[in-house]
Structure formats: C-alpha cells, structure tokens
C-alpha cells in the first residue's frame, strides 16, 4: 500500500507542478470570464435606442403601445410623415393605413431594424390589437387573464410539478450538455495522459527497473489514481474559479449593463421572447443558478461520473499504452476500440437530453461504456423527476462493477505488455495473456 502511495505522489506532483497544468487550470476560467464579459458588453453596446414615429393613429395605439426607455420609444407627433421623419430624428415610421386593401401596418426605416426591435414592436402591436378586439367584443381582459392563468396552473398540477420547481428546460439542457461534454473531453484528456505515461515508462525502459521494486499492478494503479487526482484537482479548481468569477461578475460589469439586463429579463417574461445572445443567457442562468437546479446533486453526480468513467477507461488506456512500441500509428489502431464507445456516447448525448425518457437515453445511461456521459445529460433534468433513484443507483453500481472488471482485465495485458520490447502484440496474443494468468 505504501508503495502505491509513493507512486501516486510522484505521478501527481510531477504533473501538478508542470507549467502546462498551471496554465490550463488558471487560464481557462479567465478566458471563460473574458468571453462572457466581452460578449455581454458587445451585446449591450450594440443595442441602440430607436425612436419610432407613429402616424395616422386612430387613438388606441397611443394608449396601448408602451415605450421601452432603453430600446424602443414610440412617438405620436402629428406633423410627421414618410418624407420628413428622418430629418426630425426618428429612426423608423409606423404607418397605420385605414384602407383595408393595402397593408394595414407598414414600418419604414432607412436601415434595417434589429430583430429585437422588430420583435418588440410586433409584440406591442399584437397586444394592442388584441386588447382592442377584446374591447370590441366586450370581453373583460382581467377575466381572460385569470382564466388562462388558472388553466396554466391546472397543467402544472397535472405534471405533478410544484410551481417553484418548474424545470427550466433551457437551463437543464445547458447544464446537461455542458457536463456531458466536459466528461467526454476530460475522459480523453486524462485517459490519453495515462496512456502516454505508460508509454513513457515502456519506451524509456524504466518499466523493468520499476517492476523489480513494485508489482506491475501497483505501478498501473498508482499511475491511474495519481492522474485521477490531477483531474479532480483541475476540475475542482475550475468549478471553484468559475463560481467565484460568476458571483463577482457584477463587479466587472458596468452598472448600466446590469440594469439593462434586468429590463430585458422583464420583457422576456412579458412576451416569452427567446433571447439568443449567449452572454445574456448565461447571466440569466446565473440568476437562477442556485434557485432552480439542485447543484449539490449535479456536482456530486458529476464528480462520481467523471471518476467512474475515467477509472473505467483509464486502465484500458494503460493496457494500450503497455503494448505499443514507439510507433504512434499502432496506438491509433489499438485505441480505436476504446475511443469508439466514448464517441458513441457523445453522439447520443444530445438526443438523450432532448428525450430523457426514451429507451436510447435509458440504456445509454445504464451501460457503463456510455453511462458517464449520457447519465450526466439526463440528471440535469432533475433527480428523481427525470431519472428515478433506482436507475441512478443501477447505473452507478454497474459503473463501479465495470471499472473493477476493466482494471482486472487491463492489468493482465499491462503486466505482460510492459516488459515486451520490440515486438508488436497482436489481439490474439493479448487474449492469450489474459487467459494464461
């Protein structure tokens, strides 16, 4: 046991002290932050105030079109027409034609108005027209609102969702996809790290010196656990740094931007307009981060599946590393059977998040070859709402059983392969090594 610990210590510290490790650990969150701040800044700067003149208004638009002080301001001046609105400083002209043959509503503008502005104007007009129609038909607006609200509540109840826990589909998708991708990437990064470490030991011929002091299995496990610790350190530092940076983000953003963000959020709530700038989405996600997602469950599941998935594949990567000699092309061919299921898991990640109840998602998240990636996609939809406890438990125990099996299996190949020089091992020979011992 003591020897494994010495090996773990070496594997861990030689990597953690490495400059590339420090660089990637601290640079990535900063790049992430700069990206968010930068794109938020750009998104806000690019929003300009538009003054829209409304002409030929019969009266109800004046009552119902609400200006938004930051983006769209409606003006109902009398002496504006299509020939002079630019001179008078308006960026657009909304004409309401009384004759029904022509188009009733026309917006004129010397430039093309942004999608957001157009959406806002259309939304305001729709609600104005709707209100007008309701009035004409003598329907009480308040009554209608209360009816639709009641029906919404009824739907929620039928979903057995409490109002407070209403799943934010977009956020779940983001979290599920993000953590799935992160596991996919880290599995490759740290798996390849194990493989390169084993290859280094074999090529530099230190393996034989080592196995005269420690058992090959200890050497392999020391390396795998050491690199797992490196991976965990890096992930935890990332999670920590990103949380710190996100919570302190208001300090980096101008006050005006935060104000605007709040308004945008309000309008979104009013009209359900999907906002498509990533930065705003993230800001919004941050706002609902702690409230709407069970972070404890997600982070602990993430760490479990990261570790489980890594351990499941790392020993296989180690076995591949042990049978190759200097030729990197051999590595390619031997890695294929390991990388295929990982890539397959990544492919079925998106459909599984879209449809967490499907049989593809179910089996993908149970079978240990794909479960670390696919299950993370499903978990974001909620435990136990989307993933019942028994499925989570089954998936986790199969993964644990799986990595015990792959470690045992790979250990046998590793033991022989690490001492074999010059000769390329064939699949047939490797099977023989497993059978013999």
């Amino acid at each position, binding site marked *: 046991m003591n020897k494994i610990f*010495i*090996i773990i210590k*070496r594997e861990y510290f*030689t990597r953690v002290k490495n400059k590339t490790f420090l660089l990637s650990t601290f640079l990535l969150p900063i790049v992430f932050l700069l990206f968010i701040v930068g794109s938020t800044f750009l998104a806000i700067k690019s929003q300009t105030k538009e003054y829209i003149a409304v002409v030929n208004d019969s009266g109800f638009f004046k009552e119902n079109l609400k200006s938004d002080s930051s983006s769209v301001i409606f003006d109902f001046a009398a002496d504006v027409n299509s020939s002079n609105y630019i001179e008078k400083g308006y960026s657009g002209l909304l004409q309401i034609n009384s004759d029904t043959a022509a188009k009733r509503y026309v917006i004129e503008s010397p430039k093309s108005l942004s999608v957001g502005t157009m959406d806002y104007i259309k939304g305001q007009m729709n609600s104005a027209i709707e209100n007008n129609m309701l009035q004409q038909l003598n329907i009480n607006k308040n009554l209608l609102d209360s009816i639709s609200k009641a029906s919404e509540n009824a739907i929620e109840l039928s979903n057995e969702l409490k109002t407070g826990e209403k799943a934010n589909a977009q956020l779940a998708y983001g979290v599920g996809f993000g953590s799935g991708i992160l596991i996919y990437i880290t599995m490759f990064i740290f798996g390849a790290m194990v493989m390169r470490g084993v290859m280094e030991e074999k090529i530099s011929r230190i393996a034989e*010196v080592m196995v*005269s*002091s420690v058992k090959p299995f200890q050497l392999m496990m020391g390396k795998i656990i050491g690199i797992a610790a490196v991976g965990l350190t890096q992930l935890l530092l990332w999670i920590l740094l990103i949380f710190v940076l996100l919570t302190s983000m208001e300090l980096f953003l101008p006050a005006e931007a935060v104000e605007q963000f709040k308004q945008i959020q309000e309008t979104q709530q009013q009209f359900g307009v999907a906002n498509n700038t990533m930065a705003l989405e993230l800001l919004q996600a941050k706002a609902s981060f702690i409230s709407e997602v069970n972070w404890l469950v997600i982070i602990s599941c993430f760490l479990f599946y990261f570790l489980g998935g890594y351990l499941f594949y790392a020993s296989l990567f180690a076995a591949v590393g042990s049978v190759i000699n200097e030729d990197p092309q051999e590595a390619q061919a031997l890695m294929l059977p390991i990388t295929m299921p990982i890539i397959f898991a990544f492919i079925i990640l998106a459909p599984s998040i879209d449809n967490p109840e499907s049989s593809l998602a179910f089996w993908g998240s149970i079978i240990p070859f794909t479960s670390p990636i696919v299950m993370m996609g499903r978990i974001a939809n909620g435990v136990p709402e989307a993933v019942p406890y028994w499925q989570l438990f089954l998936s986790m125990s199969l993964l644990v059983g799986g990595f015990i099996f792959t470690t045992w299996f790979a250990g046998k190949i590793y033991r022989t392969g690490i*001492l074999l020089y010059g000769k390329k091992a064939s699949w047939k020979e490797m099977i023989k090594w497993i059978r013999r011992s």
Partner: protein
Amino acid sequence: MSILKIQNLKKYFATQKAVDDISFEIKKGTIFGLLGPNGAGKTTLIRMLTGIFYPDEGQILFDGKKFDPINDVVHIGYMPEERGLYKKMKIGEQALYLAQLKGLNKTLALAQIKEWFVKFEMQSWWNKKVEDLSKGMSQKLQFVTTVLHQPKLIILDEPFSGLDPVNSNLIKDEIYKLAEKGCTIIFSTHRMEQVEEICDQIILVNKGKKILDGTVKQIKNDFKENLFRIGFDSMPMLNGTAPFEIINTKEFSYIVKIKDQYKPNDVLNYFLKDGVQINSFQEILPSLNEIFIKLVEGTPMTRQFQPAN
C-alpha cells in the same frame, strides 16, 4: 552459506522453454557470472530472481528461506540491460523515488544518495534532468540507484556497456568493494574478458539449460587441451618419437599438444637431452571466450521456436 539456491527452475512460454530445469547455488560475498548467448534464457532467469516472473516449477531459496518476492525484493538490486530512467525527472528526486520504492525512508535515502553522489562526483547533478545527461552519466546514476538501498544481492545485466574505461574501472572497483562488504553480485554479460577478470564463479546457459558451472580456474582446467608453447633460441631438429604433436609452428616457437600418458617434463626432457636451448615453456589455457564459442557453436545462434510441451 549460500545467498541464493536455485533448484530445478523452469519457465515455459507459449513458444519456447525459456528456462528449462536449471539449478545452481551462489555463495555469499562472491561475484557470480551468468553467461550465455543472446536468447539463452538469462533475462527470464533474472526476472524470476527479481520476482518479476513466477517460475512454473522449481524453487528459489533466498538467504536460506523460500524466496518471497514481495518482501525480498528490497534486498535485491537489479540493473536490467534495457535500462532507463524518467527523462523529465530531476536526478536527485529520481534517486530518492527509486530508493523509497525499495523501502528506504526519506532521511536514510537522502543520506545514502549524498554519499554515493560524492563518491561518483555527481553532487552538482542534483537538479539536472535525466534527459540532459550523457549516456555514461546516466549509466552511473543507474548504478547508484541499483545499489542505494544496500541490497544483499545485486544483479547487473551488462553493467559496463556504454561506459568509458575510466568510469568502467570506477564501477568495477565499487563492485569489488561491495563484494568485500558481503554483497553478492550476479553479473550477466557477453564480455568474457571481464568475466575472467571479475568473477569467482560462472555458469553458462544455452537454450534454457545450464551447460557449465564452476570457478573460472576450474573450468579453464577442465577445458585445457594440454597445449604448451615452447620458445627456442633457434629452431631445433625433431628426431625420434616425440611425446607431443606439433599444432602450430611460429618463428622460434612451437605450440605442441602433449600426447596421452606423457607429462610436460617428458617434453622438456625430449628437447634437453639433445641440448636444445629452451627460453620459455608455458601452458596454454583456453580463454573463456574460446570455451564459450566452443560450447555454443553448432547450436543455432538464435533460438528456434519450439513448442513448450
């Protein structure tokens, strides 16, 4: 008292009998030569002695007890022929790491490393990386890491390859010193002149079997062919029945093989009775190299693969 006793050791691989029923014994404090052509089974034999492989049959007694790889490896230092070190690691850290894996605690290991580094004039290397060392330098480091934990048994596979004569002698002296202190050294090599110089006892392995076992002197005697070189002032005439056959004639000397039933004195008498001036008379013992070639020759240089059963 023997440090190592090997009895009927066998290790068969799928394609060949790597070690096929080998027995021998090594006395404490001796330098033991393990000889054999390439692919004779030396490495497999050594790997069993270092606990890397388990024998299929037979047993190994280490220091009087049954060899227990897990606990006994700390008493063994092994420098394989295919040697290597972690290239990116600093030399001091590397030596410390390998010593700790052999069960030394940190303080003791550091003291030992310092002592050896001083001995080999390596103090200034501490913070260098292995990749910056020359081949000879890394060889010295490798030797230090092998003997650092004061093993009872040191196994050196081709320890002098790649070393210049100065460093070769440095290591050779250390080997002698270690043997004097009671360490036993197994020395595996192809270089016979070194074996003749260093080893007390040798075995020769070929095709997985032991074909020769004994002290260098005794083996040379066993293989002597009663050859003598006789030097003269002027080449004598040969008449009558001589007690020898002439194998080779050189300028002012014969190389003769003494016939059976005759002794060297008979040869001398044969010349002296004619009043021939003899200025040298010397027995020609075969070199280990010749014995080696003689025994191994005729068998294919590389082993043919043969089924194990």
